[in-house]
């Protein structure tokens, strides 16, 4: 009975989920503040990952340490995007915004494909294969650190809203800082990102499951799995 295997799998899934969760938090902050579904969100996360990769390769910077730098760069990028493009779209129909961001997403993905090639890239951390053992649990150190950092950033985000309580009329102006926090997660991506998942499911079937879940959520709980129906 591979009980430990399942347990380990669940824990590592949860840690990965924390990073995804932070990313999703960023998405919903953007939506909450500017009412735009940022179709290019994942793609901007990809930029963050590659930035962390570059900083590691050429400056030897541990991705965890490059978080502030990457966050700052993406803050600037998000700000520029907001100021030059998205602000012009406040009044246009939803689908136009969506198409525009889909266009931006394609540009980002294709450019990164051109620049970095189609192969998976890895950050060769000295502790990439280290693990922490707690009883039966064996957890990847990188994954654990990424998960912890995600929780930390999310906590900082909630604290920020607690302290500043942005007013509604500030909505558009406050998007900059929001996007910054959105991007913290970005740098974390590759600390765990391209390590083999050793999953119980084949990876591609796993994403089919994700899309299936997305369909079900869209249909039956458009307010989200945990949200309250209004």
């Amino acid at each position, binding site marked *: 009975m591979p009980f430990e295997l399942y347990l380990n799998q669940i824990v590592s899934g949860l840690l990965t989920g924390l990073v995804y969760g932070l990313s999703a938090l960023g998405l919903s902050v953007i939506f909450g503040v500017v009412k735009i*579904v940022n179709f290019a969100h994942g793609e901007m996360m990809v930029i963050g990952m590659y930035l962390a990769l570059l900083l590691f390769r050429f400056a030897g910077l541990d991705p965890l340490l490059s978080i502030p730098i990457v966050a700052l760069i993406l803050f600037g990028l998000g700000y520029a995007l907001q100021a030059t*493009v998205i602000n*012009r*779209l406040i009044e*246009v129909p*939803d*689908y*136009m915004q*969506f*198409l*525009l961001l*889909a*266009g*931006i*997403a*394609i*540009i980002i*993905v*294709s*450019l990164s*494909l*051109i620049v970095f090639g189609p192969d998976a890239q890895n950050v060769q951390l000295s502790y990439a294969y280290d693990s922490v053992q707690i009883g039966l649990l064996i957890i990847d150190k990188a994954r654990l650190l990424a998960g912890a950092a995600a929780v930390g950033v999310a906590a900082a985000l909630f604290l920020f809203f607690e302290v500043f309580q942005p007013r509604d009329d500030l909505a558009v102006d406050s998007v900059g800082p929001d996007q910054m926090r959105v991007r913290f997660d970005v740098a974390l991506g590759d600390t765990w990102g391209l390590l083999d998942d050793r999953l119980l499911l084949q990876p*591609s*079937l796993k*994403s*089919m499951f994700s*899309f*299936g879940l*997305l*369909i079900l959520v*869209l*249909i*039956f709980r*458009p307010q989200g799995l945990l949200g309250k129906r209004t």
Partner: protein
Amino acid sequence: MLNLWLGGANPRGRALLAGMLAVLAAAPFFVDSYIVSVLILVFYFAYLGQAWNIMMGFAGQLSLGHALYFGLGAYTGAALYVKFGLSPWLSMPVAIVIAMAVGAAIGALGFRFRIGGVYFALLTIAFAEFTRILFDHFTWVGGSSGLFLPVASRQGNDLWMLRGAPIMFYYVWLVLTVGLLILCRALLASRLGYYWLAIREDEPAAQALGIDTFRYKMIAVMLSAGLTAVAGVLNAFYFNVLFPEPTFSINRSIELILGAIIGGVGTLMGPIIGAFILTPLGESLTLIIEQIPTGVQKLDGLKQVFYGLCVVLIVLFQRAGVWPWLARKLRLGADGGKGGA
């Protein structure tokens, strides 16, 4: 407005259209095979943009998952040919029925549960991606290692089996594209087109007036899906090879709506004009890149960047698309180009 929407060609516009058609019909006799292949690409964009336009442009329902119907058509046609030797003309009705059924299922889910706007678009993407991965594991049609159609022998053109030279495909595409234009024009002039117009302009208002919005949205989705599948079949026989990834991917979904977006969503001529603008630009880009020694591998990526850029620029600077602007400039509209937004 309604006039523009109906294509609204005045005698001048109609003459221009007839002239264009004559040139296209004669073109293969005068131009080389490269130009023929580029024009086939133009028809591809024009036809698919038009098919998508029925759903988005006419009925106002955004689909970003049309690769699904395209792929279902492609795989249906190819599989029935490879496995059973069935003519594409016979498999087309099957493909249409399958795509319409899937479109109906997605539409019914989306409209019944009132998934609106952007969320409906997300739903269409999710279904397309789901299907893409499904086909990766669908080994009967080759799974992720692809499905190959036996390449045509050089013995002339077999129109029944769609085996032959690009010129044959050129005329098939041309006929289909013109046919779809005529069909769409008839649709818009019909009561159905009128209902779609109301739904697109203001759906709650349309509903309040007693228009069965669910029904007419469903008709739009199913028509659009079925017509898109036809292009899928044709494309499979033209390229002879199918992989789930490029066939069903979101990139394909974006690609096949580019003509309509650039030309003008919701207009009849928009997708056609858009295709004629987009394709030559894309091809020139290709030619330029080919001059660069290391450029060839990056070709695909750069084309995607170009497509993405097209969308961004259109949304930012010419939201209604190029055609309404062009029609005004060239005074092709029924109102002689005065006003009419």
